[in-house]
């Protein structure tokens, strides 16, 4: 009981590392029990974190190495070239890296936003309405992931070529707007988070279906939707094959594709490893920031609880 109160009274706990480390605020007169740390789970999580961070740490360490040090010093020994690498990356073709970064942010941000919206309405409809063919619609949408994306990229290109949309920003955005994974996830979250009686009560009050969705359904689905947004953002951010096929103009390239051009410069030109590693490291930063920003929305059960009662 008390732990629940603690969780409810501090929905933002765990938003930032600092907050997580601060002792939990004592709630209404209950015991020092909570001051104990659950050692085993904490240790397991830390172990998991170390396992996951080790290869990421390599990216960090490698980005500090100069081209000279990269292949010659011990793998995890930090180097001396970090600022120089950044400067080189910045100078490369008049700072085109930042343009790629901006393109990636546009593709991922805009794409994830629209994709989340599509997932939200679809998932909500599939979870809260019962209509003929519901399961069929759902299964057909899911079946969309069965065909490997590798084989869809070329037909998608030829299709967009018919309307003269290849080599445009839209050509990378449009095919990614529908994410069967997102729809499935939204459906699960909607059926778990939006109680039918609340929807029904709103209907009794004469609210329209769209209004019920935006005013009642949507807020309750927020924790799930931010997750979908996060996934879609990262998926588009790191997507490679679709932009590779769609785009010819390197000014429109996303970061992944841009860095790839530094790696594959032809057999007679060595790859610019240090720039690529540094670029990949910098590309992680926006994703970390996004994650830290988004995780505060995962504690909104308080809000949905309030709407329910």
């Amino acid at each position, binding site marked *: 009981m008390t732990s629940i109160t603690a969780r409810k009274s501090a929905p933002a706990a765990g938003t930032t590392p600092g907050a997580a480390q601060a002792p939990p605020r004592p709630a209404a007169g209950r015991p020092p029990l909570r001051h104990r740390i659950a050692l085993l789970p904490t240790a397991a999580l830390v172990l998991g974190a170390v396992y996951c961070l080790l*290869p990421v740490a390599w990216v960090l360490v490698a980005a500090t190495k100069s081209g000279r040090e990269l292949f010659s010093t011990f793998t995890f020994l930090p180097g001396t070239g970090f600022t120089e690498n950044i400067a080189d990356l910045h100078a490369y073709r008049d700072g085109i890296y930042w343009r790629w970064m901006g393109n990636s942010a546009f593709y991922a941000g805009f794409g994830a936003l629209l994709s989340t919206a599509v997932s939200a309405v679809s998932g909500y*409809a599939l979870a809260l309405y019962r*209509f003929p063919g519901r399961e069929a619609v759902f299964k057909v949408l899911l079946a969309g992931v069965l065909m490997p994306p590798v084989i869809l990229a070329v037909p998608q290109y030829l299709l967009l070529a018919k309307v003269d949309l290849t080599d445009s920003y839209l050509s990378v955005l449009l095919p990614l707007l529908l994410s069967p994974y997102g729809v499935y996830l939204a459906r699960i979250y909607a059926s778990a988070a939006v109680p039918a009686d609340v929807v029904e009560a709103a209907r009794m009050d004469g609210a329209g279906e769209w209004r019920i969705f935006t005013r009642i359904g949507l807020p309750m689905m927020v924790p799930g939707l931010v997750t979908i947004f996060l996934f879609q953002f990262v998926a588009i951010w790191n997507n490679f094959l679709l932009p590779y096929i769609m785009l010819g103009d390197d000014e429109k390239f996303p970061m992944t594709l841009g860095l790839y051009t530094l790696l594959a410069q032809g057999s007679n030109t060595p790859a610019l490893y240090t720039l690529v590693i540094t670029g990949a490291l910098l590309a992680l930063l926006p994703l970390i920031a996004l994650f830290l920003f988004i995780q505060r929305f995962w504690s909104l059960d308080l809000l949905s609880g309030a709407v329910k009662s």
Partner: protein
Amino acid sequence: MTTTAPRANATAAAVRRSGARRGRSAPFAFLAPAAVLFALFFALPIGYAIWLSLHKVEVKGLGLGKGARSEVWAGLTNYTDALTDSELLDGALRVLGYGAIVVPTMLGLALLFALMLDADRVRLTSVTRLAIFLPYAVPGVIAALLWGFLYLPDVSPFYYVLDALGLPQPDLLDGGPLFFSLSNIAVWGGTGFNMIVIYTSLRSIPAEVYEAARLDGCSQFQIALRIKIPMVAPSLVLTFFFSIIATLQVFAEPTTLKPLTNSVSTTWSPLMKVYQDAFGNGDLHAAAATAVIIAVVTLALSFGFLRAANSRTQQGEPR
């Protein structure tokens, strides 16, 4: 399960009552954007891919100059070619072995971490949550370099440690260990993603659900086992479903290790064969046929799983 079932039933009942009267068209309107996008960017390309798989290019003579190539009806020859290619079957077997390691490990860890993040009195949750998710965000562009530095004996710090301890040094890029090296990349990259899916589900469980259990004196462990896991069952089904698909379409991990070793061929997994046919050999027709075969197998396995999971869930329901 018992806890969700009544509510799910209530949902259905309530919607049936009023949904019949009003808003009959609402769900279709809500699904319209997805339907249009699906038709354009999934159905049409899939249809085109199937069309491709039934055709082939026919070349005349030297194949130089205009009109030397034409697309002709091929019937099922692309399919019979693919199915009689022993490399495809070998690839499928390799992928099954790989999936047998990856799927249970990755999802087991994801569930474990999600439950621990959600448990009480656990510290450092924010840092560890981010840390475990981070591999998912590392762009694939540098993957080969990254794993080269960690797996290749001459540069790997692990070999360095093994050497210092006088332990035997297995070849991580050959034979049995290769499967673990590949699986490790997948587990490393996918655990955080699945953990977040399950964790978000856990967070959306209303806190009141636990109250009764707690008042009954259930331990954290019991709550996790008896209440939390059943309640996130839909998310577990989701992660399983998509993990099966991801396994059958595995491409990134072996492609990452390919340049580092003689042991990973260009057709190590079926999807690598598709890619090789389409982007290495420029034979979209053969690639499409193989892709359709993969899709059909994936359909059977993943939807078979979904059906099994659903019937189990329904059996679990009291009413």
